[in-house]
């Protein structure tokens, strides 16, 4: 038993390691295949006031040397590999002399604080609604189902823009941009916390609403399937109380949904970066956008690497857990 599992585990690990290598390579290469010269963009920022010809050239050369963009790409890759292994992602081009680690450090918490609760809340509400729709049927289901279908297929940016126009620009209930009030300095006062909460609402709900729809549809189908299962009918004949049966049903229907939750958390960072951008919300999405516009290779690579690693890791954990939970999967895989 244990030997079979070890084989399954190593097999999975091997595949994930291989995927990671390719993902890492692509993370490095793809941004660098963008046409254009990031150093020229940096130089252009301050060359406009310079009236002499050799000065601009000197600065250009200084920066190509510093960022290593004058070296062949293979050499750049090995330097990058060596540095990343030490946890050093180097300097950000667009925010030089800030390091990539520093840029990410100051933005990633906004993303986690936005997305983690959004995923959990969307999951909880979605599953509750889905289960209720399956159980209550009738009007509730007829209204919820089409709305969920409609909403869950919305792209995040579309929902974000609608929320911004309706609740921000027209109704003026919430601010349209930023992570906290324009007139505040971050601190632990009630004033500031309140401002953060108010600024949080639109990006948060534009993510949650979409998540609710998707989760509700999944949970509804699972619940309907379970509600019609033989054990439910049998339990009814046995005269077991409705509430007890419902408890069984939802526990069983929940299993695949838990998997979905794990996956969402794994892909969280890459999930709804667009909502951040729409609301100028500080976070990885905004950082990634700035990095792309500024051709900031090291920053793009680092952010996409984080997304890749988290998605791979979540998938890996789930695959391993599946092996434990459902022996059939392991059996077929290790054949």
């Amino acid at each position, binding site marked *: 038993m244990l030997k079979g599992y070890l084989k399954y585990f190593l097999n999975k690990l091997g595949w994930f390691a291989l995927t990671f290598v390719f993902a890492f390579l692509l993370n490095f290469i793809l941004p660098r295949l963008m046409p254009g010269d990031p150093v020229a963009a940096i130089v252009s920022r301050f060359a406009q006031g310079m009236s002499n*010809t050799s000065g601009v050239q000197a600065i250009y050369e200084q920066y190509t040397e510093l960022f290593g963009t004058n070296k062949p790409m293979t050499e750049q890759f090995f330097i990058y590999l060596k540095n990343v292994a030490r946890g050093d992602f180097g300097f950000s081009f667009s925010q030089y002399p800030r390091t990539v680690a520093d840029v990410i450090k*100051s933005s990633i918490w906004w993303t986690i604080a936005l997305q983690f609760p959004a995923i959990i809340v969307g999951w909880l509400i979605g599953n509750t609604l889905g289960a209720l729709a399956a159980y209550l049927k009738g009007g509730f289901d007829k209204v919820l189902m089409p709305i969920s279908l409609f909403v869950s297929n919305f792209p995040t940016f579309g929902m974000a823009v609608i929320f911004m126009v309706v609740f921000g620009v027209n109704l003026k209930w919430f601010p349209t941009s930023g*992570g906290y009030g324009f*007139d505040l300095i971050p601190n632990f006062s009630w004033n500031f916390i309140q401002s953060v909460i108010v600024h*949080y609402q639109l990006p948060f709900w534009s993510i949650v609403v979409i998540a609710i729809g998707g989760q509700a549809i999944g949970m509804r189908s699972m619940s309907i399937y379970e509600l019609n299962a033989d054990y439910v009918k049998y339990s009814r004949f046995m005269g077991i109380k409705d509430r007890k049966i419902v408890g069984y049903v939802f526990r069983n229907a929940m299993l695949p949904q838990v998997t979905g939750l794990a996956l969402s958390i794994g892909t969280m960072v890459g999930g709804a970066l667009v909502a951040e951008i729409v609301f100028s919300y500080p976070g990885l999405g905004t950082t990634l956008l700035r990095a792309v516009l500024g051709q900031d290779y090291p920053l793009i690579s680092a952010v996409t690497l984080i997304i890749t690693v988290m998605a791979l890791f979540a998938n890996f954990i789930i695959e391993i857990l599946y092996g434990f939970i459902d022996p059939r999967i392991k059996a077929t895989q290790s054949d």
Partner: protein
Amino acid sequence: MKKILYVVSFLVIASMIITACATPATEAPMAEIPATEAATEIPATQEPADPNSLPRNETLYFNGQQWGPVVGWNPYSNSMNNALGIAQQDNSRVVMFETPYLYNMLDGNMYPLLADGDFTWNADRTEITFKMNAAAHWSDGTPLTAEDVAYTWATHVKYNTPVGSANMPYVENIEATDAETVVVKAKLGEDGKAVNPLLVAGYLSTNYVIQKAWTETLEARVAGDTTALLADTAEDVVWSGPYSKYFADDTKVVFIRDDNYWGQDASMWGKLPSPKYLAHVIFKDNAAGTTALQAGEVDVSQQFNSNVQDLWLTQGLPISTYLPEAPYQIGATLPTAFFNLNTPGLDQAAVRKAIAIAVDYPTIIANAMTNQSATFDQAPRSLMNPTAGEQASYDSAAVKDLQWAGNDVEGAKKLLDDAGVVDTDGDGLREYNGKNLSFVATCPNGWSDWQAAIEVVAAAGKEIGIEITTNYPEWAVYQTVVTKSDTPLPEGYDIFMMWSDGAGPTQPWGRIRKLMSSEFIGMPSNWNGNWGQYTNPEADALIASIPAETDEAKLKETYTALVKMYLTDVPSFTLMYRPQSFHTVNESIWTNFPHNGDGTNPPVPPLDLTDGWSIAGLYNLTLVNP
């Protein structure tokens, strides 16, 4: 059972909503508060009453300058991304660091700041001498002396900073003959004359004076390494200006007034500037910035707000521009379409001029600038911007018959016919050397005002039998191609847009040089100008003669000759006028902003209230509701 569930489900959802709102409150701010940083950044002597909020009636808000997070405070470096604090340019930003003189783009004069009185040239125009203001001192209380000026230059040279490498060809040395006296020695040519006296004088209003003692600390810290010196974020920097760093994160930057600022001395301003804080929220784009301006969250807007007049005419907001009517702004730079002089067909002056005179400029000005540009009837085209000073620098009557205001389709057709560029095969397109005239007009993708202008240029081609298609590469690609002047431009860059210099102490000479001088051809990375690669030795000679010329009449003659050449050869043509800085103000909180004819003397230019002489405007501001 089911009814109960309806109620319960409602309650569950409601409670989730409430908890969801509460969750981030503890998470989000914790991550971002640079608690220790903020604490150390606030100078102990100026602890504000409530360190956590910026009282609205003590804070002046900007937009349009800062588009990304501030990186640092190092005045030697150009990569601090600190637009609100550091900009050494024609109109230098003197919020935190100061220049000896302040340039005023409205009257073209230089006014002393750190200096005391006007500077003087020696008889040979090889040396400038000026005195330092005895009242000037650093934020640490030590006096600001001539020695600091000399040491700043020495450091620029020693480490070959951007300022150093830009000025070394013109400035030989800067010396302190005593604590108060600075002598700037110009680099001399083989003829024993200054290479470029104009740029030597320009140095005085362009470049900051940085403290010698702090520079020595910095040098010790970086152990003589240039890269490290320019990358140092200078958290410990000593400044002389009226404001210093207070707070910066990914969403905003805030400066706080230094109440020990030397400039409150009677010899300078006689008081402190009105706002206690200068703040700039980092907006995602112009639209977000305009929304904030409308909401009264921005006082001084240095960005393009399209149809700016709607803000007061339609929406009734207390918003205004420097001029009450169109063009609303003072034009200073000349966004220009360059011809690739190596493209067959465009090497013919007649073809170039025909395209240029057929273009519908009023449409460009209405669409691309929403009328925030003077028209070419108001400011006839030359090489000068619409400011009075530059307009007076050439003889407009002498070039009157060469100037055009656009939409001259018949004139363009006649020009082409006369040059023998006609349609012989009846396909509607004229030929040159047996080939249809077909060009690509281009500018960076997403630069919507430029794209609107390029579309109008392309439309003009159709009217006169020349095919002009448009193409919009990404800026990242565009800039690499256009600035590569050591080879001819590739296909697809026949007519392309770039900028030209604005208002400054070396203008209009600097702008003309960058539009016409052939000295930039051959540079692998040309961020100066003449991207179409125009060569005219006669023009080169005239441009080279201007910096040393002191005879006003001769200067005017030279400028007029250059305008004549430019309007005859048409190596490039101006599409619109654009202000040095857009200047739109919201008077909900602050008032008494600079406006045309506001009676200030010297007049305060509409430049953010931070650049060059415009900082004088900060001292004039008053509260709407004191």
